[in-house]
């Protein structure tokens, strides 16, 4: 178990070093950057994918295209896409890196929003129209609340993807927690590699907890079956 003692030693070295906790390359600053880049990419992806998914699911047009695109997107290598955009657009701002992050985050949200809306029980939809609701109202008051668990699942899968890709993007010069891992690996500073990796893993788990809470708070008890109707 010699690797375990080495591992714990590196952790102590990384987290115990006071210099790692201050300044623009300190843990708080890097953590905040990671959060900023991930949140920005995810927010842009949600802004694009949710309305599009709602429209396609509600009208039923272009559904096959969405599913094919989502499958194809899974095959795209994130590192290749990042390097391609940075070579094309230069590395003068964060956008050459944010664009591929958004591109990779859109498909899971799009496909789950579409599937969520399409999968709503047609009887429920008919009942809503029967009660006199119009198209937009049916979508907003019935279809979206019922499809919400799937829409949130899409967002959660995208968040996983974005947090991971933001880490990889440190290779092409982006800030964030990936810096510790990439720079540490390049300079054989294993305390930095191990400490940074542990931080990223904790950050990813924290994001999952946030999504679980959001799901709990926003999904109607009737939909999540926490409330059983007898």
């Amino acid at each position: 178990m010699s690797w375990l003692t080495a591992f714990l030693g590196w952790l102590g070295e990384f987290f115990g070093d006071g210099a790692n906790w201050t300044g623009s390359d300190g843990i708080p600053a890097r953590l905040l950057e990671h959060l900023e880049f991930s949140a920005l990419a995810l927010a842009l992806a949600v802004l694009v994918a949710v309305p599009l998914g709602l429209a396609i699911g509600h009208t039923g047009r272009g559904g096959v295209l969405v599913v094919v695109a989502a499958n194809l997107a899974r095959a795209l290598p994130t590192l290749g896409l990042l390097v391609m955009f940075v070579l094309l657009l230069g590395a003068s701002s964060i956008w050459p890196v944010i664009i591929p992050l958004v591109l990779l985050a859109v498909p899971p949200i799009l496909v789950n929003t579409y599937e969520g809306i399409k999968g709503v029980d047609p009887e429920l939809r008919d009942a809503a129209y029967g009660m006199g609701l119009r198209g937009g109202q049916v979508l907003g008051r019935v279809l979206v609340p019922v499809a919400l668990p799937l829409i949130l699942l899409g967002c959660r899968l995208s968040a996983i993807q974005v947090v991971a890709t933001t880490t990889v993007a440190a290779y092409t010069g982006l800030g964030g927690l990936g810096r510790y891992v990439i720079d540490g690996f390049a300079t054989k500073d294993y305390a930095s590699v191990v400490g940074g990796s542990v931080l990223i893993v904790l950050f990813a788990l924290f994001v999952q907890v946030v999504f679980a809470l959001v799901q709990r708070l926003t999904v109607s008890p009737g939909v999540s079956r926490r409330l059983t109707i007898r």
Partner: protein
Amino acid sequence: MGDGPPSLWEWFGRNWDTGRADSIRTLLTDHVTMSFVPVVLALVVALPLGLACARWRWLYQPTSGLMNIVYALPSLPVFMLMISVTGLSQTTVIVPLAFYGVAVLIPAVVDGLDSVPDHVRQSAVAVGFTPLRRLLQVELPIAAPVVLAGLRVVAVSSISLVSVGALIGQGGLGGLFTRAYQNPFMPPVIVGIVLIVALALVADGLLVLAQRLLTPWVRARKEAAS
């Protein structure tokens, strides 16, 4: 072409088989190995675990909770943490990818077994199938389409995820991306992306074919219905 930078095709032709460890052919072989092995490992591990979860229901919720966590772990830090155990080898990439695969396949196996209609299961018991034969000859074949759908997701995402391994020098075709970044040059990036997507499409196609061959009744039923 003289002194200008080589075109895409020229670069590809010149680097396809140089006999060195970084020739495209070698990278492609490495890539296939590093993405194929985790898929097989994942299936071998997930099948019994999925069966156990379907058999003893109380196991399923904690298992799927754990698998959700595994799935959420970003690949690069996991590779980095693996280095201290397995060193800088292909295993460092293969093991985490296998874990991601298991995380996707366990729910697929359980859902697949859940899709076996109760009357079919009871008929099998009634005509005298032993539990093992019932599993092998009735339940698993009916579960196959759902399991194979999961396997397609695992195969395609493994193929694209291997390239992240390039950041620790073990990325198969991903090595083309790091090479292109260190010495800014576009052809390797394009070749890498195209080959990886093509590999994913081939793997996906083969699994669709396997699905057709393993479950001929699905298509027969569709044709009868139309």
